[in-house]
């Protein structure tokens, strides 16, 4: 379709492209600032006042040396990796099972189970009663308190269910005739067909767990050795307690000016892994968001 390009259209296009470029700059600038600040000369950093587009003074990796040697950051990294791996594996297994079961149409308990799950999306016990139950189970201050509660997300179950339902029944029928049980059918025949939904759930879970801090902050208050990375990040960034990370023989005297440097370096160290993975996984996130919501 050939269209006359009107003057107003040209103006609109210029403004629109300009707006998009501006938006991208706004999205990137704070992150770029942090990256540049993390390798800047700490003394000059103290007296600077604007957004950085290049490192100040001589490039230095002192901050990274401090951060990467730090036992807290290492502990946090290991714990976070463990929580990400365990919740992902456990979560995906339970989500697949639940989605599979409520997608069966010849089950008498299909509706009760679906309603049981659906209801929790609308109403819940809330923070304090949940805490009391988990405390009564003896899970407080153990890693199970951040792994098990919340390992299943009802939304993903219904996502999985609709994926199963969209598969043609013929796949299953032929397997049934060969005498395969439900578990065999699910694992051998249906799972390979819903690979992309499984990938979506796994991706969301990885990002969510990597960034999660609240459950750990209430359930692991007394066990620093079990803290995920984000709790140490909170200590450094939000509670402004770089003292803990800098304490030690060599650092105390430098604390004054190294504080900012450590903050920025820790931010980069904690954020870079997710930002490096995300562009490659973007299509799954887009898919995940659109599965549930597009209607009509």
């Amino acid at each position: 379709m050939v269209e006359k390009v009107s003057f107003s259209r040209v103006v609109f296009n210029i403004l629109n492209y300009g707006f998009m470029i501006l938006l991208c700059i706004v999205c990137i600038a704070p992150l770029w600032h942090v990256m540049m600040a993390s390798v800047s000369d700490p003394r000059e950093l103290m007296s600077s006042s604007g957004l950085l587009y290049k490192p100040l003074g001589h490039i230095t990796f002192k901050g990274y040396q401090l951060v990467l040697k730090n036992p807290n950051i290492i502990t946090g990294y290991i714990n976070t990796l463990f929580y990400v791996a365990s919740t992902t594996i456990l979560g995906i297994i339970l989500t697949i099972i639940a989605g599979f079961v409520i997608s069966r149409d010849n089950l008498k308990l299909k509706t009760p189970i679906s309603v049981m799950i659906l209801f929790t999306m609308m109403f819940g016990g809330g923070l304090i009663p949940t805490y009391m139950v988990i405390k009564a189970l003896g899970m407080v201050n153990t890693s199970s308190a951040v792994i098990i509660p919340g390992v299943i997300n009802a939304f993903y179950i219904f996502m999985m269910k609709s994926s199963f339902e969209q598969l043609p029944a013929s796949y299953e029928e032929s397997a049934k005739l060969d005498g395969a049980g439900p578990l065999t059918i699910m694992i051998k025949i249906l799972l390979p067909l819903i690979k992309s939904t499984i990938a979506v759930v796994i991706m969301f879970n990885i990002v969510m767990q990597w960034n999660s801090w609240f459950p750990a902050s209430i359930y692991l208050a007394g066990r620093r050795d079990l803290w995920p990375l984000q709790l140490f990040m909170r200590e450094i960034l939000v509670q402004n307690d770089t003292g803990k990370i800098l304490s030690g023989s060599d650092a105390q005297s430098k604390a004054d000016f190294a504080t900012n440097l450590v903050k920025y370096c820790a931010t980069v160290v904690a954020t870079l892994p997710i930002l490096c993975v995300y562009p490659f996984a973007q299509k799954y996130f887009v898919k995940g968001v659109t599965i549930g919501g597009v209607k009509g």
Partner: protein
Amino acid sequence: MSLNKELNKTPKMAKSSWKRDFKMNWRIYLLVLPVIIYYFIFNYLPMGGLIMAFEHFTPVKGFFGSKWVGFDNFIQFFSAPNFTQILRNTFVISLLGLLISFPMSIVFALLLNEIYNTFFKKAVQVISYMPYFISTVVICGLVIDFVSSNGVITNLLVKLGMERQNMMLNPDFFWGINLLSDLWQGLGYGSIIFIAAISSVSQEQYEAAAIDGAGRLKRAWHVTLPGIMPTIITMLILRCGLIMTVGFDKILLLYNPSIYSTADVIATNVQRMGLEKAQYGYSAAVGLFNSLVGTTLLLVSNGISRKYAEHSVL
């Protein structure tokens, strides 16, 4: 299978068909048992635990031994000096998101749809979705740093005539800081769903509108927007159901006692009263009030949209 269905239809056979069902599907039920146990323990036991909202709860005496106080906890909450304040904060912070962030995601999707350079469009998408993947802790750390008394944003505003100060300690700024940081983090990501909806609007409608002489703006208004209306309504209902949660973990990281007057919301109040001050029964009551209002808002908005827009999520 068809035989099974017919058996289900006759009420007389109900008992034996249950038996049949279990006999036929016991492996499936065994498979799903862990999920049922999980939901029972971590979702339904806490719902039962809400009984503590009506008790003077002490962990030693437990759910059954604590003193029953009826609606005292609720009355205490409704007559608390900060009740209207935290209720107002909850609604203001939520509604700012609903009235500003939400429409802006739609506008952003519409504007992006007008860009025809595929590479440029893809680049904008990748970059604008990115902030969503940064953790709340890091975002809040950046915000606190940028608005501190020598922060990047503070310096900018000082040049524009603001008095130098740590903006995080001034209650006047909190709503704006929270809204803008939400917008920074969520604008691109929030638009994904609308971009997808736009791409599923039929091309024929656009062509028909173009033949009728409709310009770009008219086509966006008369074709694209009605085309994505069901998606907009669905997302709106879901947002209404989340009004009472207001991204409270972010507020928890950002706020401090000097700005409670604008930053304290119901959910943060529950956390503080319950876990820091050990007022268990009271905070469970506040939490129950919060989730009842939230569920009601969800059901009401769903009902309204079912009646007037013929779309609903539930």
